[in-house]
């Protein structure tokens, strides 16, 4: 930093959206390459490595998250249209869905209630504050949906976004091992479970296992986003009535 010119450039860049946006894409590009190099090992999940790279970079350069997000928001924003885009795989799988509508509906309803109920219950049991409980409740839904719900039920939307990402990574990393272990070999059931528990990050992983698992995971993610939005606020009211804090 003894060269004044360089410092000026840095000051300019760190407040412009260009830097945040570019490093997000570069970090993800590198992380994705690493992921392919490890033969798609779920432990090298590109979200984990790119988030880690970016946090280290931001901490090392003393850049705040809000400065980074000036640029990061352009990527983050696309979660909205991506949610709308889920209508397409949903439509394409509709004939399969129609055959399986009853099992899918039952699994989805149970999955969404278990996801929210168990996270609230466990957090409460382990002494988590109400804010943490409410931020955890919608963690299995895709980010924009979970953030909206978190805000409605008294959680912290930005913390929920982080928990959503960690949940997705957990699901993507553990998923295939868990399914082996409980001997669920049908890609339809695996896909539904992945999509309900681990939304888009799980779906990205499911597509690598098979396109059928990916399609059903995408379908479950879309339907559970809808179900979570409808069921979780109601479930929270119910829990408050039965088990007041």
């Amino acid at each position, binding site marked *: 930093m003894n060269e004044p010119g360089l410092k000026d450039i840095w000051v300019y860049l760190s407040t412009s959206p260009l830097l945040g946006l570019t490093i997000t894409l570069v970090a993800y590009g590198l992380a994705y390459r690493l992921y392919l190099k490890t033969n798609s090992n779920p432990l090298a999940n590109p979200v984990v490595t790119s988030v880690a790279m970016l946090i280290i970079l931001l901490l090392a350069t003393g850049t705040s998250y809000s400065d980074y997000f000036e640029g990061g928001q352009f*990527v983050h924003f696309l979660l909205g*249209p991506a949610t*709308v885009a889920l209508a397409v795989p949903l*439509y394409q799988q509709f004939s399969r869905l129609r055959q399986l509508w009853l099992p899918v509906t039952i699994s989805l309803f149970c999955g969404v209630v278990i996801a929210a109920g168990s996270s609230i219950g466990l957090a409460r049991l382990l002494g988590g504050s109400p804010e943490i409980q409410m931020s955890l409740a919608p963690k299995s839904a895709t980010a924009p949906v979970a953030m909206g719900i978190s805000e409605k039920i008294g959680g*912290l939307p930005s913390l929920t976004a982080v928990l959503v990402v960690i949940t997705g990574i957990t699901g993507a990393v553990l998923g295939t091992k868990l399914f082996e272990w409980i001997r669920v070999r049908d890609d339809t059931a695996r896909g539904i479970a992945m999509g309900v528990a681990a939304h888009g990050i799980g779906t990205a992983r499911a597509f690598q296992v098979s396109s059928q698992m990916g399609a059903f995971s995408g379908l479950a993610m879309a339907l559970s*986003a809808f179900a979570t939005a409808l069921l979780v606020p109601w479930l929270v009211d119910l829990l408050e009535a039965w088990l007041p804090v």
Partner: protein
Amino acid sequence: MQFLNGITLLLVYQLVGEITVRFLGLPIPGPVLGMVMLFVTLMIRGKAPDSVDQASTALLSHLSLLFVPAGVGMMAHFGRIADEWVPITLALLLSTVITMVATALIMQVTTRWFAKPLAEKEGGDE
């Protein structure tokens, strides 16, 4: 041009979703309503136009990239996560495992109960 049309259409559905949700005070997020409205439109039209198909494939094939900025948000919550790391980590981990195992088993069992006869009847569907 196809791709641009597709993206525009997705944004229009999201916008209409957001406005409707706010206007009617619905309990669901705008993009989710947008998704439902697009789904209904596709069902009525009977096919997904190339433009929408292209745009949605592009967005969904790199879905995990879209979660990266939110994940970096962890650094803004280090304090809170450090304070309550036991309930956060354990509840998150256990709840995710329980949800995944339970949903997979429920789906497997209910498929055996209900779907076998149906699937056999409508076998060669698409």
